[in-house]
C-alpha cells in the first residue's frame, strides 16, 4: 500500500508541477488574498499577529481547495480512475497518495505565502520557530487528510471549487483556529496558556480525519461516475 501511495504521489506531483500552470492558480489566489488584505490597513498602521495569521491560513485554505480539486481532476480524463480502482492494492493507497501529493504542494505554496505575509502585512518571525514549524506541519496534515477524503466527493461535478469550499471550510474550523493561534504566536503574539492545548487540538483533528479517511475513502472512490 505504501509503495502504491508513493507512486501515486510521485505521479500526481509530476503531472501538476511538470505543467507550467500546475500550481500557479492556487499560488496567485493565495498571494492576491494576502495583498488585498494588506490594503485594509492605513499606511504605517500595524496588522496584529492574529490578523496576519488569519490571512495566511485563509490563503492556505483556498490553496488547499484548488490543489485537491486539481489532484482529483487528473484522473477524470480517459476514465483513468477505473484503472486505479483495478489496481491490486487497497484503495486507501490512492487516498494516501493524494494526501502526500497535496501536502507537498501546500507546503510549496506556503513557502511563498509566508514571506508575502511577513512583507505585506508587516510581521516578523519573532516567536518560537520550532513550535511554529510543528504547528504548520500538523495543520497542513489535517488539511490534506480532509482534502484527500472529501476531494473525491466532487469528482465529475461542475463548479467543484465552490462546492469544495462550502464543504471544507466549516469542517476545518478547529484546525484553522489552531493554525491561527499558533501562527500568531510565531508572529510574536504571546499565548497565555502556551501552545500546548492548540497543538493537541491540531493533533486530535489529524487523528480523527486520518482515521476517517482510511475508513471512508473506499466508499467514495468507486466506479460510479
Amino acid at each position, binding site marked *: 500500500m505504501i509503495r502504491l501511495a508513493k507512486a501515486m504521489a510521485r505521479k500526481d506531483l509530476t503531472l501538476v508541477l511538470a505543467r507550467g500552470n500546475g500550481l500557479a492558480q492556487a499560488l496567485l489566489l493565495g498571494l492576491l488574498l494576502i495583498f488585498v488584505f494588506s490594503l485594509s490597513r492605513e499606511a504605517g498602521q500595524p496588522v496584529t499577529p492574529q490578523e496576519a495569521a488569519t490571512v495566511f491560513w485563509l490563503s492556505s485554505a483556498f490553496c488547499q481547495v484548488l490543489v485537491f480539486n486539481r489532484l482529483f481532476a487528473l484522473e477524470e480524463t480517459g476514465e483513468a480512475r477505473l484503472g486505479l480502482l483495478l489496481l491490486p492494492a487497497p484503495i486507501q493507497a490512492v487516498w494516501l497518495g493524494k494526501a502526500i501529493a497535496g501536502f507537498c504542494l501546500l507546503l510549496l505554496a506556503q513557502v511563498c505565502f509566508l514571506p508575502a505575509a511577513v512583507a505585506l502585512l508587516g510581521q516578523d518571525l519573532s516567536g518560537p520557530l520550532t513550535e511554529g514549524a510543528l504547528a504548520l506541519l500538523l495543520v497542513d496534515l489535517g488539511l490534506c487528510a480532509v482534502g484527500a477524503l472529501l476531494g473525491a466527493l466532487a469528482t465529475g461535478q461542475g463548479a467543484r471549487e465552490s462546492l469544495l469550499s462550502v464543504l471544507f471550510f*466549516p469542517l476545518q474550523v*478547529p484546525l484553522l483556529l489552531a493554525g491561527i*493561534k499558533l501562527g500568531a504566536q510565531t508572529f510574536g503574539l504571546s499565548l497565555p496558556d502556551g501552545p500546548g492545548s*492548540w497543538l493537541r487540538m491540531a493533533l*486530535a483533528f489529524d487523528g480523527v480525519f486520518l482515521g476517517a479517511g482510511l475508513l*471512508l475513502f473506499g466508499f467514495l472512490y468507486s466506479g460510479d*461516475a
Partner: protein
Amino acid sequence: MPPSPRHIPTGSALAAAGGLALAASQWLVFRHAPVEATMGLTQKIFYIHLPLAWWALASFLVVFAGSILFLLRRNPATDAWCRAACEIGVLLSGLALLTGMLWGRQAWGVWWTWDPRLTTTLVMWFVYAGYLVLRGLDMPAPRKRVACAVLGIAAFCDVPLVFLSARLWRSIHPAVFASKGGGLEPEMKLAVIACTLSMGLLWAGLLALRTGQIAQEERIETLEGLAGQDD
C-alpha cells in the same frame, strides 16, 4: 428497501400533537414560571431556544447514525431518514441561532459573540447546509447517497472538535443544568422540560412526515423515468 410514504399519516398526527403540546406549554412558560429578575421577559426566549438547540443536535445524531447504517446496509430508506433529519436539523439550528442572537443582544449587548455553543451551532449549521447543497447536486442517486453518508459521518466527528476549539478561544455562555445547585428555579425547570418534550414530539412528527414526503418524491421520479422510457 425503498423509503415508504406510509409515515405521512403518523408524522402528521405526531406533528399536530407536538404543535398543540408546544402551544399548551406556553402556559407554563408565561404563567407558571416566574419572570427572571435580571433579564425580565426576554429570558422567556430560553424556553424555545434550548429545545430548538437540543433537537437540532438530535437531528444531526440521526444523520450520523443513519449514515453509518446506510454505508453498512445500503438501504435507500435509511438515506431518506438522514435527508429528512438533516433538513430539520438545519431548520432548528438556524432558529436556535436566531433566538440565541436575540438573547445575546439583551443579555450581553451584542448580536453575536464568540461562545463555544453558539459557535458550534453556527459551524454545524454551515456543515449541514453544505450537506444539503450536496443533496441538491445533479449526480446519480446511488453515488449521491454514499457521498452524503460519508459527509454525514465526517461532519458529526467534527462537532466535539469544534466545541473544544471554540471553548479554548473563549466562552461566556450561561450554564443551565450543569451548575451546582441548579441554574433554574423548579418552575422554570418544569417549563423547559415541558417545552423540550413538546418540541420532541413535533420533531418526531416532522421527521416522519418529511421522510414520507421524500419517499413519495422518489416514487414520482421513478414513475416519471418509466413514463419517459415508454415514450
